[in-house]
């Protein structure tokens, strides 16, 4: 039996225990200090909210997920393609790559109000916003990854006159994949943030919108229920990307 076979048990038991302890403490606090439910509802109240109207949360989760997936797909496709072009045309790379790197510092959330003026409220605007947020880590990761191929591997392919396309597909692209995925992993987390912000400012549906409306009505239990669902959505996406990565990764 290898070490890996023996370790997982405590890896699961401890975190789950910690979570249960945290929920128990939460419950104990609300009960012992008699905190009014409109300030901090007990865990059971939040669970009751979820169970009482699952359709509300599922519909909104689906709306948020749709923005993340469509916006993410657009952002990843455009980011990856632009990185290819920038990498293939050195002149272009020298001209715009510094700005691509510098623009990463800009908080993209600050751009949302600008989008509101140009594109109005709606699904498309939200998609555009999520795509913008996803775009930067992917473009920078891909561009960096494409330069990662060791010179000696390129020599090897040149020594049999393999040609640029074959070299690209067989050696350059696989060498770049870890960096591409590092970018995508960053993007996923950002995409969830982007979707929620888009739902506050650029559209009227989804978990973000639900949280905002609940906040206006001081429905802390609804907010916590929506946040729990949002957390699950984020974890699901991150896990999905990690699984995809494991399927193609070599490092």
């Amino acid at each position: 039996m290898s070490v890996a076979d023996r370790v997982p048990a405590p890896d699961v038991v401890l975190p789950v225990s910690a979570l249960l302890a945290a929920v128990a403490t939460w419950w104990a606090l609300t009960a012992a200090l008699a905190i009014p439910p409109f300030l901090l509802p007990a865990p059971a109240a939040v669970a009751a909210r979820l169970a009482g109207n699952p359709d509300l949360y599922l519909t909104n989760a689906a709306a948020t997920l749709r923005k993340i997936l469509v916006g993410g797909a657009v952002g990843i496709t455009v980011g990856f393609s632009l990185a290819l072009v920038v990498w293939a045309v050195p002149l272009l790379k020298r001209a715009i790559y510094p700005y691509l790197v510098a623009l990463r510092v800009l908080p993209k959330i600050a751009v949302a109000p600008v989008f509101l003026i140009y594109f109005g409220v709606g699904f498309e605007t939200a998609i555009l916003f999520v795509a913008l947020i996803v775009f930067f880590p992917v473009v920078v990761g891909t561009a960096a990854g494409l330069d990662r191929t060791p010179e000696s591997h390129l020599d090897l392919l040149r020594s049999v006159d393999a040609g640029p396309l074959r070299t690209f597909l067989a050696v350059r692209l696989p060498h770049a994949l870890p960096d591409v995925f590092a970018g995508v992993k960053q993007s996923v987390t950002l995409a969830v943030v982007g979707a929620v912000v888009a739902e506050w400012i650029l559209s009227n549906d989804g978990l973000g919108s639900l949280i905002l409306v609940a906040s206006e009505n001081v429905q802390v239990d609804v907010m916590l229920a929506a946040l729990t669902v949002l957390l699950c959505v984020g974890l699901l996406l991150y896990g999905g990307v990690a699984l995809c990565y494991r399927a193609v990764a070599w490092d």
Partner: protein
Amino acid sequence: MISVEDLSVSYGDLRALDDVSLDIADGEFVTVVGPSGCGKTTLLRTIGGLESPTAGRVSVDGDPPEVAQADARLGFVFQDHTLLPWKTALENVTFLRRMAGKDPEPAGARELLATTGLDGFEDARPSELSGGMKQRVAIARAIHLGADVLLMDEPFGELDEITRDEMSVEILQLWRENRKTVVFVTHSVPEAVFLGDRCLVVAGAPAADGPDSSTENGTPGRIVAEFDIDLPRPRDESVFGSEAFGRQVARVRGALHDDA
């Protein structure tokens, strides 16, 4: 046959090789020995078409190296094993042949791996192989390519001495069985003597181009001595301890130090 005529190679203003001429017969095992930066790797890479001559010419069976590359007649083995980390040993062996546009022959590749002692490691990734095993895969890959000429650039440079000696014996066995022309660059004098039919000593260092370069900046790389190694074949580990081997090593060392 490989023919090098009045070859000079410069990188920008720096001349790495100056006026080198050399013929290598089919099936010959030629070793090139010299200190780091003397131009021996440049010579090998130019023969293989990875660098272009600044003056002079190189031909492989009468063709320029680029033509030989396209026909998959040149098999490189680098100091860095250059195995693709995401491919298994077997896939790495067949990979280069595929890149050359030839059909891979998995059966032949398996057999090659077996003769290099990698039985049972066909499906192992490079990260699961030792340094010596990786270099064995790289050598099998060059042979599987079907190249007539093996161009080896310090292939054992990163291996420990015990593994190096083992690999030297193995490469001679492979050479006997496959009858390739081999150009083998190394900075180990014993290795050069043990392996070669002929050992070329290269010395010099990159120097500024120009008419007065040799007086002001030292001399760029050139062949300063050439030795026929008349140790009987087949050679095995026992050669390392023989008196004749020691004498040859001393002669080659002498030539290297005379120049320095």
